[in-house]
Structures are given as structure tokens and as C-alpha cells.
């Protein structure tokens, strides 16, 4: 299931070091998927991707796309960011609980007048001059 793609003019805020462990995730973004890792042994879901499962220490994972549907667990607006991050301040950050039972932290894109905790949000893929990233936005946008 493909997530919405949103074009943003700025580069991603920090250079991202892609590794053999995380490469499938970043590749997934280019195809419209937000992938989480499922432990081959105990079936625990992990995000971010890890070298070993923190629950059983197995080292083999499958990849599974999430639906992108979730709820806003908490939100803040950070008024100032360090200049080297190249972020347009202020920026809303969100703790999002995805319906698969995974919690992530991400940026909350503007556009909604109803930023309310426990309301529905959806994950989106963001396209930057230097590659793809991800964010959330309220479901009413």
C-alpha cells in the first residue's frame, strides 16, 4: 500500500548514514512504503531497524509495510532548531502510534487547525532534493 508523497523544497535536515541494516527501509521510502522490521524468531516489530531483536536477540528480520494510519499520542512545537539542521523553525514534532502497534517520532506537517491528541494521523513520504524522508499529518489535511 503506497503512502502519499509530498514535495518539500529543503534537503533532509541531517545527512543520513545508510547501512546494510537500514537500507531496506530507505529503499522502501522510494517505493512509497514505510517498512518496519519483524523478528523472524519472536515476531516482535522494530522501528528503527536494528542489528538484533531487543526481545530475543535473533538477527534475522522480515520487512513489512505499515498502513500509515495511526493516532497522535503527543505533540510539541519546537520554536528554534540549530542552524546546521537547516530546518524552518518552528516545527511541530509528534509521537505517533501506528495501528500495527509501533510507536514512532516524526515531524507533523502543517495544514490542520485541529491538532488534537488521540486524533487520527497518517504517515506520508516526503521528497527532498537529496532524497526521501517521512512525516505525519493530521487526517483532516
Amino acid at each position, binding site marked *: 500500500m503506497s503512502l502519499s508523497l509530498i514535495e518539500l523544497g529543503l534537503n533532509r535536515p541531517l545527512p543520513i548514514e545508510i547501512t546494510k541494516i537500514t537500507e531496506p527501509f530507505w529503499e522502501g521510502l522510494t517505493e512509497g512504503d514505510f517498512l518496519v522490521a519483524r523478528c523472524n524468531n519472536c515476531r516482535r516489530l522494530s522501528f528503527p531497524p536494528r542489528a538484533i531483536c531487543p526481545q530475543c536477540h535473533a538477527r534475522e528480520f522480515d520487512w513489512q509495510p505499515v498502513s500509515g494510519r495511526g493516532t497522535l499520542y*503527543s505533540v510539541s512545537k519546537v520554536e528554534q532548531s540549530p542552524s546546521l539542521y537547516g530546518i524552518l523553525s518552528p516545527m511541530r514534532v509528534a509521537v505517533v502510534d501506528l495501528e500495527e502497534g509501533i510507536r514512532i*517520532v516524526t515531524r507533523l506537517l502543517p495544514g490542520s487547525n485541529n491538532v488534537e491528541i488521540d486524533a487520527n494521523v497518517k504517515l506520508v513520504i516526503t521528497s527532498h532534493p537529496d532524497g526521501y524522508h517521512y512525516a505525519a499529518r493530521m487526517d483532516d489535511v
Partner: protein
Amino acid sequence: MGAQRHSSRVAILGSAATPVGRLAPRYGQMADGLEHDILAEVAADALLDAGISPDRVDAAIFTQNPPTTRQLGFATFMMAQLGLQCRGLVTEVSQLGLTGGVAFDQAAAQIQLGQAEYSLALGVVRQSLGDMSMAMDFGIRAVGDVNFQAPFAIPPIGWYALDCARYIHEHGASREDIAHVTVKSREYARHNPLAQFRQPLSIREVMEQRPIVDPLGLFEVPARADGAICLVLCSEETAVASGQPYVIVSGRGFYHEGHHQISDHPHSITEFASARLAVKTSLVQAGVTLADIDLAELYAPCTITEILVTESIGMFDRGEGYRALLQGDTSIGGRSPVNTSGGCLARGHPPQLTGLYGLLELREQLLGQAGERQVPGARLGLHTCELGNYNATLAHVLEAPQ
């Protein structure tokens, strides 16, 4: 209790500290000294306070300096400043907000292991002239996954802001209710000569400040702060024999939850499990209950953090911490005084040293030396420090000798 427990207890025999604030020079002015000069004088004062000569010190555990300090190899360099020859351990420790507490914990362990007769827990922070963007970058990378969270530039206080927004949502508190922590903190700090901010504030003045990390404004988050502090530790027997005033470390607890900031598997961010568990362990070891505690110094960089810790350790029920605050329970004269030093928001928050300044406040209170902020008859004090979003907590119970 029996002699065995008695013999393993550690005492704080001496202390010295600079006021929290600014140790860096004003623009165009000459510095009083570099970090090692400032700390050398403070350590010498602490030894004078303890009444012991430098050749009695066997171990020194330093808090690692922030990246603004140019002198590296700091702990070993300091040995040359202080002229100390140690058979125990000389090192520096660093673990985010736990740092000061870990220095104390390891200095105490040196005594308990028999590797030192006297040990020092000490450190200096002189960051107030540092580049703000660099400091923010360090903070962001310390409190989030560098590839998957740091790109969203959440500073340490941003995580507490997320706690605050959730707490307001869950319990119907207002931002103003929570901001009263700052007003209370300033009331205590008026009477603390070591405090960074000693002017009282009204709730209106707190609420009028610009937002920093919504829902927290300028006075609801800590300011940049410098400081230097040294505590002198020894065994309880040595302290008794010295004839000097001392306090005893009667309980210690630690817990790490096994995640950093938040887990990828949902859990409450308004309840700090590590604080509950570490404090429980420390109370059991001290042989007391929370009801016996006369005052608490709780590591709380932001207003909301103090409320969440008081609830997490069982001082108040969940969702009741802000009501207890508004009723004055944690204020001067209240039934559960919290952060009588003024805490991070008024005493000030040089992050690596906050744990040591909190322990110093308990020492002064338990020795009856806290002046107008004195909790009458205080005999038992509880201290916590933490890292992450209270993902790990180190707790100590301090006791005045009978």
C-alpha cells in the same frame, strides 16, 4: 541494624560549590580562571570543609566536561592541579543527566570497596559562552536515535514538552497549573545563596514568556548554567571519628528500563517506571518508607518533570501531582517539600553537575544549614537523577545521624 550494615555505609563529610550561574567571562573581560583552576579551588575548599589534608584522598571521580571545555584528559590533568596521589580510582564519568549522580555513586563505591578512605565526587561546567547551535546539536543527538529521531531536531526539553502535552490531555491540567512549579522554585531559591535565579516570579510573569517547546515557555525550561562542586566522602566510622558534621548515605537504587526516550512499543510517557523502581529500592535499603522522607531533591529540568516524578515515586496519585503543587504541598512549609534548592529552574541546571548540587542541598538541609528554606527537623532526604525521559533513574536516601 547490625554492625555489618553499619560498616558499609558511606558519609558525606565535606563540600564546596560555586553559585550556579555564569563562570565564563563577560565579553572583552578576562576570565577568573579556566575550568581546572575553578575546580581546583572548589576541591581545596571542600577538603578544608571536611577537615582533611589532600594526602588522605584515595579516589576522585569527575563528571566529564561538556564539549565547550578545551582541556581534554581532564581528570588526570586535575590530579596535577590538586597534587593528589591516589591508590583507588581516578576517572571521569558521563551519562547525560545521571552524570553527577554517577560520580557520587562511584565515589561512594570506592569507599565501600575499601579502595579509598576518602574519595571525591566533583566536576565543573563552564559552557555559558559556548556556541548555542553546537550545544543544541549535542543535546539533540544525545536524546534521540541519530538517524531516525535526531533529524526532527527534538532537544532534551522537547521530550519533556511531549510529556507535558500528554499529561494535560490525560488529566485536564492547564499549562498554567503546571507553570506554578517555576513560581514555587523561585520562592525556594530566594533563600539559596547558590541559586542562579533568586528573584521571585508571579505566575503571570511565567505565563507571559515566549514559547520555547510548546506547551512550555522560557521560564518553564532551564537556562544555560555553569557551576563547580566537590563532595568529600568517607565511611560512616571515619566520619563519626572525625568529629565533623556529616550525613549518611543510607539507601541507593538504580533502574534502567531498557529503552531510550520512548520505546517503539507504546508505553505511558507520563509515568516514569524507572523512578518508581529505583526509589523503591533505595527506600527499602534505607529501611524507611516514602512517608518518612522529609524532603526530596528530584532531577527535573522542566516544570512538568517535577510533577511527573512526584507522581511516579508515589508521593501523589497519578494526575494529582499538579493539584498537590497548587495546594502548596511541595512548597516551603508544605507536607512534602520538593526541590528546596530551587531545582533546575531556579537553583539552576549545569546538566553534568545537577545531581551533585541536589545532593549538596540535602546535606545542607539534613545538617540544619539551609537558612530560611530549612525544612524544620529534616532527618531523611531523597535524591533522584535520570537520563533520557527518566528511562533510567539513580536514587539515593540521605540521613542525618541520630
